[in-house]
């Protein structure tokens, strides 16, 4: 394929992505979720009041979790109806009647949605970091072991936020996959459960091991071990992208592990998108 050919294909993706971003940015649900996220983020202080000397830690904890959870909710609420809305509203006819391949449409939708999720979470992260800096300055507190509290904007926090971005990249791809083959409600349900299940991927791995090996003298079940093992390998391992627990304690993830985690998130998202494109390719439009 020539550079001009690649450019033409990217032009279609860019046009769809730009329009999706514009459409999502006008969605009131987006602002509702962001507002709620900010509210929860700020409420960390309230919970901090009831925890002795733990204000800043609680703010960190709740703040990082809020960015992840509400970012995923944006992908869920805004993203799961994106493709169906195009089909229901019949705007898809005039788009695909252009020299635009279906995969370009799906990838464009994904890029536009991920751009929206990223912009919203970047905003929330900024508010979180500023808030954290202010609270650390005002009430530095101390850790239970009497050591000095970690710096507010340390590398571990940045790592956690960056990996949250990649976690949302993966969740957004799942939202687009389900949206391309299912109704908005069903795809929202699927996306939500996959997001929640993904947070417990390590527990599924542990369960698979326990099922295969057996516990406390009980014989193991190779069948259930294999089934759970397969589930673990297939499900998105969002647990891997969740370093928020260690970041709260100012423990950084090794650079190599972070790089492999990012590669995993990109590869998994790409695979999900390829599946979404393949399924959408076969779909007849109503």
């Amino acid at each position, binding site marked *: 394929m020539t550079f001009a050919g690649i450019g*033409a294909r990217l*032009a*279609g993706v*860019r*046009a*769809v992505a*730009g*329009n999706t971003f*514009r*459409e999502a940015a*006008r969605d009131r649900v987006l602002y509702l979720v962001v507002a709620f996220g900010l509210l929860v983020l700020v409420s960390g202080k309230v919970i901090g009041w009831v925890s002795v000397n733990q204000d800043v830690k609680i703010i960190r904890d709740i703040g990082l979790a809020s960015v992840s959870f509400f970012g995923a909710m944006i992908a869920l609420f805004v993203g799961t109806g994106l493709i169906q809305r195009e089909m229901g*509203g*019949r*705007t898809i*006819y*005039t*788009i*695909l*009647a*252009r*020299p*635009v*391949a279906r995969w*370009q449409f799906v990838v464009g939708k994904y890029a536009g949605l991920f751009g929206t999720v990223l912009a919203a979470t970047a905003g929330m992260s900024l508010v979180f970091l500023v808030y954290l800096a202010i609270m650390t300055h005002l009430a530095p507190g101390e850790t239970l072991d009497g050591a000095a509290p970690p710096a507010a904007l340390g590398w571990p926090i940045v790592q956690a936020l960056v990996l949250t971005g990649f976690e949302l990249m993966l969740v957004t791809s799942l939202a687009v996959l389900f949206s391309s083959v299912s109704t908005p409600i069903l795809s929202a349900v699927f996306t939500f459960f996959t997001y929640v299940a993904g947070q417990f991927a390590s527990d599924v791995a542990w369960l698979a091991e326990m099922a295969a090996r057996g516990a406390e003298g009980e014989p193991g079940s190779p069948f259930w071990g294999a089934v759970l093992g397969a589930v673990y390998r297939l499900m998105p391992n969002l647990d891997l992208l969740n370093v928020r627990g260690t970041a709260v304690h100012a423990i950084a993830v090794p650079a190599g592990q972070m790089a492999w985690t990012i590669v995993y998130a990109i590869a998994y998202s790409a695979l999900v998108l390829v599946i979404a494109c393949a399924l959408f390719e*076969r779909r*007849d*439009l109503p």
Partner: protein
Amino acid sequence: MHPIQTRDLTVVYRPSLLARSTTGLEGLTLAVEAGHVFGFIGANGAGKTTTIKTLLGLTRPTRGEAFLFGISSRDPASRREVGFLPEAPYFYEYLSGRETLDFYGRLSGMPRDRRRRRADEALERVGIAGAADRAVRTYSRGMRQRLGLAQAIIHGPRLAILDEPMSGLDPLGRRDVRRLILDLAREGVTVFFSSHILSDVEALCDRVAVLSEGRLVAEGRVGELAAARVKSVEVRCTGLAREDLAALGDGVAVDEEALRREEGVLTFDVPDAQAANRAAALVIERKGAVLALTPVKESLEEVFGRLAGHGPSGARLPVRAGTARTQTDAPGGAADGGAE
């Protein structure tokens, strides 16, 4: 190379594994010549929209193939020089008319300068330049239809596929769209359009295809289709009285209005040429004068009504050169009840 060509195009719908399959289109073989205005008519559910969606790759054929400019409709490149107006087009409500055209121009890979210039031209051409910067949500149905036409032509396509282009337009709007279609044809653009307003098809199209229950039942020049069958002969004469017509047998109908209008002149229809000969002989016998013998041919609407209901599968009407067009210009589409 034909702008549109289909071979044995068949679409069978099966909504789910347990549902019964329905045939949307069966064995459609069609070729549209470059530069023609081609009309596509058929009753609701006849398969017109299915054909258009298959041509544009929106629906996969179960069997057969469709080509646009020789490229398979499965390949997005086949749509590079195609403009499409869907029936009752929908657009993003929050975009303005100009932004909408810019979006479609981008999808067609047009550079920014050309998009801007062509958007202004297209909006001007369809008559909504004054509303270019208003949000589409404020547009009336007719304005949306015009915007749909503008997006179909912004990139200067060589083929325009228009699904019910007159739908939702007032008489002035219909006139403007007719002019636009004729202008496009003059510019060498091939226009393929479906319409339930048969007078529009008759006035605009070089050729027409009639679909019924997913099958092609007739295809040919409009004049050939419409004038292929003489349904009666009109006799205009002097020297005869109404009572004399009994001698001509059954099937004679007097034009009462003409009788009131022209004193001493009798105008009546006889069923066929033999009856017309007998009528002429009778007039001569009564020392009268035959003023006119006019074959009354089927209008496109009547052809459509006959074929859509009972036409044989895939049959082509006989092609005869030099046949005249019949005059039917029923405003608002006289076949509204039966056609899509």
